């Protein structure tokens, strides 16, 4: 019988964090990516409204703010795509799997180790952005943002859900991939559906009311649960070790 051990889960998370911190390319990517996605919103919110007259500020701010959801959608896929194939390539997966760790602990630990830094950075960047809006943006713009509860709910609630989606897809790719590079490129495809979703919301096909934000979040949650289940099924020890489906 499998008994989920939170001690083993924590061991995986702790080790992953230690490992990332020492890999400069990961640290740099993780730090630079969020700020790249800040450029568009910053220009839109702070620069454009100053020069041109904006007809309806409430509609105008939606796209730049939702654009911030790209951060949790795109940032974790590279890391997630690395999780399994990275260990397989290093040869560390096999010894790891010889320990009493269960598949569930392995997935949860690996996933959490990507989700935690992603969310810390995402919310950190959101905080900075909203602080800057409060302090520097024109009052019509800042009240348009802070006055739309649905927009902020979407921003905060959907971030971890989109991140979970990207992580699940990235890990699924990682299980199957035989090369890190391929895994990371395929993993990036995970962000296409979230980008489309954000576009649909932003161009106003569906107007982001609070109800819409909540419904989308619930649907996303359902999709995430399914995706995680599928990944969990894929995480068969044999497949992890050999990279191919167990054949009988």
């Amino acid at each position, binding site marked *: 019988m499998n008994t989920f051990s939170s001690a083993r889960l924590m061991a995986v998370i702790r080790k992953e964090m230690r490992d990332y911190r020492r890999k400069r390319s990961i640290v740099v990517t993780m730090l630079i990516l969020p700020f790249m996605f800040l450029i568009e919103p910053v220009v839109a919110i702070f620069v454009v409204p100053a020069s041109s007259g904006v007809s309806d500020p409430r509609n105008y701010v939606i796209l730049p703010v939702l654009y911030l959801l790209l951060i949790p959608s795109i940032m974790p896929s590279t890391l997630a795509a690395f999780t399994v194939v990275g260990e397989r390539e290093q*040869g560390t997966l096999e*010894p790891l799997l010889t320990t*009493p760790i269960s598949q569930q602990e392995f997935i949860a630990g690996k996933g959490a180790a990507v989700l935690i830094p992603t969310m810390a950075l995402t919310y950190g960047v959101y905080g900075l952005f909203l602080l800057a809006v409060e302090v520097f943006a024109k009052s019509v713009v800042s009240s348009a943002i802070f006055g739309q509860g649905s927009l902020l709910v979407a921003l905060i609630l959907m971030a971890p859900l989109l991140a979970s989606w990207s992580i699940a897809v990235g890990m699924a790719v990682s299980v199957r991939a035989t090369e890190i590079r391929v895994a990371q490129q395929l993993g990036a495809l995970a962000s296409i559906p979230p980008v489309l979703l954000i576009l649909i919301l932003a161009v106003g096909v569906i107007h982001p009311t609070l109800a819409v934000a909540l419904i989308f979040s619930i649907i996303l949650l359902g999709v995430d649960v399914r995706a995680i289940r599928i990944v969990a099924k894929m995480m068969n*020890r044999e497949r992890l070790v050999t990279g191919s489906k167990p*054949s009988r």
Partner: protein
Amino acid sequence: MVHGALQLVHTGIKGSERSTAPGGFLLTIERGTAVHPPSASSTFEAGVKGEPALVVRHLTKRFGDRTAYADVSFEVAHGEVFGFLGPNGAGKTTTVRTLGTLIAPSSGTAIVAGIPLSVENGVEIRQRIGIMPENPGLYDRLSVTENLEYFAALYGFRDAHVRINDALDAVNLADRAQDLCGGLSKGLRQRVGLARTLMSDPQIMFLDEPTSGLDPVAALEVHTLINSLRAKGVTIFLTTHRLDEAEKLCDRVAILNTKLRTVGRPADLRAQLFHNTLRVRTRTPLANPGAFFATLASINEWHSNEPGTYELEVADVQSAAPDIVRGLVGEGADVISVGESAHSLEDVYLALIDDDGNGTAS
């Protein structure tokens, strides 16, 4: 009393620790009496002492249409050092992975450390065994200690630091504990992998080529380590390409070439395949060896490649040797040495693998 120097010769096995290996065959002749080698035969027969550590029954693993190993059956007793030999691609690593619950067999059953091999029993089996894979697989950006800490946490050890220090001492790595693994040489990495396996204090330890890439001194240290584990009662499943190592360390060996070719004590395997031969050297060649050897009933056949050196084929070395020495002395010959010209495990291995056609499994 025998006159002339009587030398203790053992031509089959080279190595300094041979006398400690129960599987090794040591013929000691002193003052004309043969001292029998310590009989290890019954103590290590699988199944004699309670439940075996490993029971493997008709195990087969296929990858698509490639068969990694087929219909493999054997047992390993508790405390036994079991050698698993075979050419490249024979299926040794795949067998270790199967018994270690990493991959599922295509058919057949096994009991590992008392637990039936199945996916559901995986965690419990892995708690009781330790596997050192072919490739030690270390996290290069973590130090030696950090690598071990991770595994100690996965096993849930409370006394992690004591275990880590003991394991590092056992493989002589205490002074490299803080080094990043990325900077270690191949042999040092191998030793970290070994320390990691030791740390979990398993009932059964699977070592997949533990001495590959080690220098002779380091390899000898691993041999000493294996012997000390044996003394502690740990069951060891040792995969190796070094037949001298297997002969020196293992109570029994199995030779695999996709199918299991044989299982047994090295000495028994030699005896099964080859006639027993005694090699006798005298200071001066015998005047009429043919006539003399014909008088000794224990000699079946003889030949001599150089004057003064005789290869005598006998049924049983133990009883024939003293007879022959007495005979030679009575004949007035100055015996320089009498020894068993034993065939090595290598001879057994080559004979069996050659039967299969070529050296590599398909």
